[in-house]
Structures are given as C-alpha cells and as structure tokens.
C-alpha cells in the first residue's frame, strides 16, 4: 500500500469509527429519552469522537484501556461489540457486564477494556497499576488511560501519574478535555495551566493536541505510543475538545453561554472536519455518506436487538460477589 493509500485507509477508518460512535450514542440517547429504556444516567461524548477514534486506532486488542463514565466511544474504538454495549445500557442479559454495570461501568475484558468508572479520577491509579502488572510480567503490551479535565483536580491524578513516572511504566494518560465538569466550567476550578503542566511537573513528557482533529490526534498518538512501546516510559496527551451535550443526556445545560454548543457543532465537529479531510483526499460525497449510512443502520439495528433482549435472570443478583461466603440474607 502506498503512503497515500495508507493515509486514505486510516482516514476512512477514523471517519467510520467516529460515525459509529456518534450513531451508537444517538441511538442510546433515543433509547433513554424517547423509549425510556435506559433507566440510569448516560453521559454522551457527542462531538468528542475525534479523541476516541484518533487515540484508540494506535492500540491493539491486547493492549489495555481504562476509561470514564463518558466512555462509550473509547470502548467501541477499542473493539467492543456495540450490541453487548447497548444491552448493557439497557440492563439486559448479554450486556457486556451482564446488565449489572450499566453505562457507567462498561467493561469488556475480551478486548482489553478494563472498565469505565463511576468515580471521577479513580481509573488513574488503577491504570497505572495495570501497566505496572504488565511490566512485572515482562509483557510488551501497553496501557491507555482516558480521563476528563475534571479528574485532574483529584488526588489520584497526582498519585497515579507520579506512580507511573517513578516506576517508568508503559502507559499513555489521555486527558480528554471537553472544558466542562458536570455543570462547572473546569477552568474556573483548576489552578495553573492544566493537565500538561501538571504531568510535566511529575516527570512526564506531555503533548497538547486539537482533539477535534482526528488525524492530528492519530498522528501524535502514533508517535507517542511508539516511544512508549520502545520503553520510553509514561506520557501524557492533553486533547482539547468540547462537550456538546449536557452532562447527562437529560441535562439541558442551561449554564453554558448561549450558542456556545451550537457554534462548536457548526464550526468544530470532528466528523465534519474528517469528512473535509477525506474529501480533500478525493473521496466523493457518496462514499462519505455511505460510511455515515452504514453506521446509522448498524446502530439502529443494535438498539432494536438490544431492546428485544430479556433482563438478566434474577439469580444473577447474588452471583459474582466473591468465591467464599454466601451473599444471601440468611440472618433469620
């Protein structure tokens, strides 16, 4: 394959992944709002797909990913089955966690996805530890840990990043900076210049990238992961993007400046930008639309299939607690 072909293939894959993530989350939001099938909260990453697609295309199936409450995109991009994920969002049998975790606790160990997390920042030390374990095992696998801009104000950020630095671990920390922490503009509660400066102060090389430019994210992550795979130690990628939805699918986000989100959608959508890149490489509008349509129909079907799946068997309520000791309430 020529470099140009190679670039086109990667560009197409990036677009396809972003379209699939977008379509998955649009269906998930419909399932939540229109169909009332999602009973817990979901945190869409609509508008942030450039980070998921651009970062994750540099990792293999047997590499390790840890993510956050806003982790559908990362998980899909790691190779998880969208039907198992949608079932999980609906709390159904065959969900990737058997319906026991829901959106905030999605995990698919089969593709190296060791869990979203309902506690902001908690994945950072755990991810460092996964890298620690891999290093102890002499493995050549690496870890990528994605967290939000809000997480850098929690203690585990310092402890986990310092840990990776001290033990020189094969891990990429990605701060996916969508500029908001729930209803708060993150910059208003963050001292100093932010994620990259903090990581540097802990001994890491840190790089900042436009997270809505999927090509740029993919390029820079390729360079970084090459260094990490070569034993260069942990690094930080600070990817700047924008949270277009509310914090959850139900949040109208009235705390944002008027028009901010609409402006971002119009001028800075990672999918639109990638379509433009591919058009520049010579792809036709039809080709691009076909990628969109394929993603749409895949995810419409996924939701339909998920909705047709039964809830888990009641006995599962007491399964997988622990090996020893009965969980049953038998006090009387």
């Amino acid at each position, binding site marked *: 394959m020529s470099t140009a072909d190679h670039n086109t293939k990667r560009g197409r894959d990036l677009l396809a992944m972003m379209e699939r993530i977008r379509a998955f989350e649009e269906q998930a939001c419909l399932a939540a709002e229109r169909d009332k099938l999602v*009973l*817990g*909260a979901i945190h869409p990453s609509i508008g942030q797909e450039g980070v998921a697609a651009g970062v994750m295309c540099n990792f293999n199936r047997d590499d390790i990913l840890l993510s956050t409450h806003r982790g559908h995109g990362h998980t899909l991009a790691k190779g998880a089955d969208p039907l198992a994920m949608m079932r*999980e969002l609906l*709390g*159904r049998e065959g*969900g990737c*966690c058997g*319906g*026991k*975790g*829901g959106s*905030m*606790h999605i995990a698919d160990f089969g593709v190296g996805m060791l869990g979203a*997390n*309902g*506690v*902001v*920042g908690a994945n950072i030390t755990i991810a460092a530890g996964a890298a620690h374990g891999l290093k102890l095992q002499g493995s050549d696998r690496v870890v990528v840990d994605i967290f939000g801009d*809000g*997480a850098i*104000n*929690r*203690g585990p950020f310092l402890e986990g990043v310092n840990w990776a630095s001290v033990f020189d671990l094969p891990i990429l920390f990605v701060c996916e900076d969508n500029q908001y*922490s*729930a*209803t*708060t503009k993150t910059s*208003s*509660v*963050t001292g100093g210049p932010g994620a990259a400066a903090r990581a540097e102060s802990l001994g890491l090389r840190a790089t900042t990238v436009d997270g809505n430019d999927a090509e740029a994210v993919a390029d820079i992550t390729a360079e970084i992961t090459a260094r990490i795979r070569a034993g260069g130690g942990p690094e930080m990628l600070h990817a700047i993007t924008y949270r277009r939805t509310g914090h959850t699918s139900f949040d109208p986000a009235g*705390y944002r400046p008027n028009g901010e989100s609409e402006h971002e959608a119009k001028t800075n959508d990672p999918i639109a930008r990638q379509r433009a890149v591919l058009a520049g490489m010579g792809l036709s509008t039809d080709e691009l639309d076909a990628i969109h349509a394929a993603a749409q129909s895949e995810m419409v079907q996924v939701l339909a299939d998920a909705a047709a799946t039964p*809830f*888990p068997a*009641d006995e*599962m*309520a*007491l399964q997988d*607690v622990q090996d020893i*000791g*009965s*969980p*049953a*309430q038998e*006090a*009387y």
Partner: protein
Amino acid sequence: MVKMTFVEASREALREMMQADETVWCVGEDLGRGSVFGQYLGLQDEFGPDRVADTPISEAAIMGAAFGAAMVGTRPVVEMRFSDFALCATDELVNQIAKARFMFGGQSRAPMVIRKPIGLWRSSAAQHSQSLESWYVHIPGLVVLCPATPQDNYSMMKAAIRCDDPVVYLEHKNIWGMEGEVDTSLEIELGKAAVRRQGADVTLVSWSDTANLCVQAAKTLAAQGVDAEVIDLRSLWPWDKEAVVSSVRKTGRLVVAHESVAVGGFGAEVVATVVEQAGDALRGPVRRLGAPRSLVAYAPNLEDKMRVTEQMIVTAAKETMGK
C-alpha cells in the same frame, strides 16, 4: 404548617440558618446549579458565591478544607453529592474531623454538617447506591442523622447546623420529591426517635426511607389484625435506646428493617442492645431485615433483589407473633 417536599424542607432550613448566622456557608461541586438534586437551588443567587462555593472535583479537599474552615470559626455545610464519593474523603472525616476535638484535648470544635445522599435510586448501580450509616455510627466523634420525612428534614437540618459536633447527614435519594406538612416552628432534639405509629403487638424499628415503608407495612398489618408500633430512629448516633427498649417491653416483639446490607448493619446493634437491655421482655423471635451481602446491580430486576419490601416487613412482623 407549610407543604414542602423533602428536598425543599432541608433547603429552606439551610436558607433560614444562612440568613440567621453569617458563619454558615456551603461547599461542594456544582452548588451554584443547585447540586445534583436541587438541594441548593437559588442559594448562590441569594448568598453569593463565597457562601455557596463551587469547588473542584476534590472530595478530600472539600472535606479537609471545610474542617480547616470550621476550626477557625465558620460553620460549613459540606456536600458530597452521593455518599459513595464521600469515601474519597474518609481519612479527612474519620481520622481528622471525628478525632480532632478529643486528640487536641478539647481545644477544637468541628461544627460541620456533612451531607451524603444515600440509598437506592433506580439503576444507579453499585457505585451510586450505598448506605453506609453503620460505618459512621461506629466512629466516635460523629453524629449520624437519617431523616425520613419533610418535617424531620427541615427540623433536623436546623438542629444539625446548630450542633457543635460534626454531623453526618444522610438524606435518601429516593424521597426528594416526597411531600408533607412542615411546622417550621417545630424543634427536634437530636437523638430522639419519632414514634410514627403507636401499636401494642410488635415494634418495627427503622430509619431513613425504610421507616416510611414500615409505616405502610403497619397499615397493611392493621388490616390483618396486627397492631404494629413504628419507631423511626431518625438519629442513629445518639440513638433513642429508651424509646426502642420501652416499646419492646410493651409489645414483646421486635423487627428491625433497613435498606443497607444486613451483615454488619446498624440493625445488628439495635437487636443486640434490645437483647442486652430487654431480653427478658421478648415474647417471640426477633427479625432483622436488610439487603443481602451482595452489590446493587444496574438491571432493575436485579436491583430489586436488594430491596427490603413492605411484604417482607409484614411477613417478619407476623413471624414474630408466630403467625
């Protein structure tokens, strides 16, 4: 009497306390937007961002900083959002706040109210559903409150803010919208239980939303000829042993019910205390209801398996009577 929801009741109490005492302030994430459940709606507009402070996502610092501010003479109301996240500030609460007054030989006080919404709330799953009241009762230095009605949430919030001890204040997430009449002049002494229903046959002891379930169960039991007394402890430390013991001396029968895990739950303390102090008065088997020692799943049918139900309370009450 004013009609209020559970969430309005504590918000109104907080507002009045902030009006009356300028050392009272609130600190936590997203308070300017009312926090997750609207507990602070409008307060930042009224009192400004210094007294209703929006913070970074830093539970350890929220707890620790509030403690420091309490030691220099302010009275913080600390918001932990979900009680689960408060676990990120356990050292601060248990090793620092609870211990300072004793450890420093009485030199310091930590007049703080630490709000930790607890309990099952549809499909919140394992990290957003816990009720760990029994942990805090086990920690000397802490007051532990579990209001279950708008009236109690109003009056107890006021008492909690007035209290010079650190107060762990556990509101149940499932009853924010519960309506009730509130007498804003009613003062509640912390540590006194509420007898929610008088009865002669069996004593039902509970707290938080499960106390409301017990009131329901008592109605059902009445229809079946069983006259249940319902005691809502509302305060777990101090707790009203006298009310429970004297009720059991009257009825001779005891059911304790709570939403948290049964094993190691505060229900065990209630049963053990009754047995120690009034074991001779028991005229039937004792029953204790709580969640299995399993986790709260996302799927609704699995989540329901963690719930104590009205039917379970009814059955247990009848069992204590040999029915």
